[in-house]
C-alpha cells in the first residue's frame, strides 16, 4: 500500500478490496439486484444506507433532542405562515431543514442515525397535519399553497408527540 495515502484513502482502498472479495461472483448478480449483505459503499456513512435494511429496522421512533425537534416544528410553521404550507425552494434555504436533521444525526451513535432521521421526519408530518387541521376548520376546501388568514394558526395550543431524550 502506498505510504503517502491519507487515512481516508486507505479506508476506501480497504473497502474496495473488501467489496472486490465479496463480489468475486458478481456474474451471478442480476440487473437491479441489491448488493450482497456485507457490501459497503465506501463513499457514504454505512449507518445511513437503507439498501439491505427492512423498513421495520429503521422506520421507528426514538427519543430525540427537544431543541432540534422544536426547530424542525418552527421551520414547518414558517412554511405555513410565509408560503401557505409550501417549503422555501430558494437555493439559499432549500437544504436548511435537511441540514439541521443531518447535522444533528451525525452527533449520534451510528445505530441511532436512521431512526432519529425517521423520528424527525415524523415530527414534520405531525406538525404539518396539526396546522392543516386548523386551516381546514376554517376552509374545508383548503389545499397546499392556497392563501388563508395565517393568524388562525395561533388559535390552537400545540399538542406534540412526547419524543424527547
Amino acid at each position, binding site marked *: 500500500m502506498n505510504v503517502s495515502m491519507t487515512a481516508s484513502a486507505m479506508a476506501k482502498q480497504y473497502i474496495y478490496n473488501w467489496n472486490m472479495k465479496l463480489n468475486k461472483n458478481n456474474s451471478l448478480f442480476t440487473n437491479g439486484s441489491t448488493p450482497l449483505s456485507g457490501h459497503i*459503499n465506501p*463513499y457514504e456513512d454505512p449507518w445511513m444506507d437503507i439498501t439491505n435494511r427492512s423498513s421495520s429496522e429503521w422506520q421507528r421512533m426514538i427519543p430525540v433532542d427537544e431543541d432540534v425537534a422544536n426547530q424542525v416544528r418552527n421551520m414547518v410553521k414558517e412554511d405555513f405562515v410565509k408560503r401557505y404550507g409550501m417549503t422555501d425552494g430558494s437555493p439559499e434555504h432549500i437544504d436548511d431543514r435537511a441540514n439541521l436533521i443531518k447535522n444533528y444525526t451525525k452527533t449520534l451513535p451510528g445505530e441511532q442515525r436512521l431512526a432519529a432521521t425517521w423520528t424527525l421526519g415524523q415530527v414534520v408530518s405531525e406538525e404539518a397535519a396539526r396546522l392543516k387541521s386548523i386551516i381546514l376548520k376554517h376552509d374545508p376546501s383548503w389545499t397546499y399553497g392556497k392563501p388563508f388568514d395565517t393568524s388562525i394558526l395561533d388559535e390552537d395550543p400545540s399538542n406534540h408527540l412526547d419524543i424527547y431524550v
Partner: protein
Amino acid sequence: MRKKIASLLTACMLMCSFCVMSVSAAEAAPIQEMEFVQEESSARATNYFSGLTGTMNSYNGVQSRIFQRSSGSVPSNSKMTSVEAHVSVSSGSSPFYLVIKSPDGITRETYVRSSGYYTLDFSGVDAYGTWQVYIYNTGGVSTATANVKYYYQY
C-alpha cells in the same frame, strides 16, 4: 430522376442530423429542468420532480461526478414513495452501483449491468431538499447517464 434521388438523400441526411442534434441537446439540458405530474386522490396527492444527469464515469471503484436535483418548493409534509431511474449504460461498461442519496443523507443503491428502468424504494423519506445521484464500480470502467424521477406524496 437523379435530381430526385439526390434531393431525397439530402432530406434523409437533414432528418438524421436533426435527430442527432436533439439527442445532444437533451444530454446537455440543465439539471434544473423540472416536470410535474399530479394525481389527486381523496386522501393523498402524488407528484414527482425529475432531472437528467450528465455523464457519470467510474473506474476501478472511483466515485463518479455527483449530480444534484432539487425538489424545489413542495408541500411541507411531502414524503417520498420511490425513485425511478432510467439508466443508459454505454456499451462495454463494467457493471456498477447506482446510488441515490436523500437530502437528509439516507442512501440506497442498486446494481446495474445494462440499460433499463430501476426503481429504488424511499418510502416515507422527506422529499424536500437536494437529492444526489452517482455511480461507482468494483473494477473496470463504467459510463452511464440517467433520467431520474422522484415520486412523493403529501
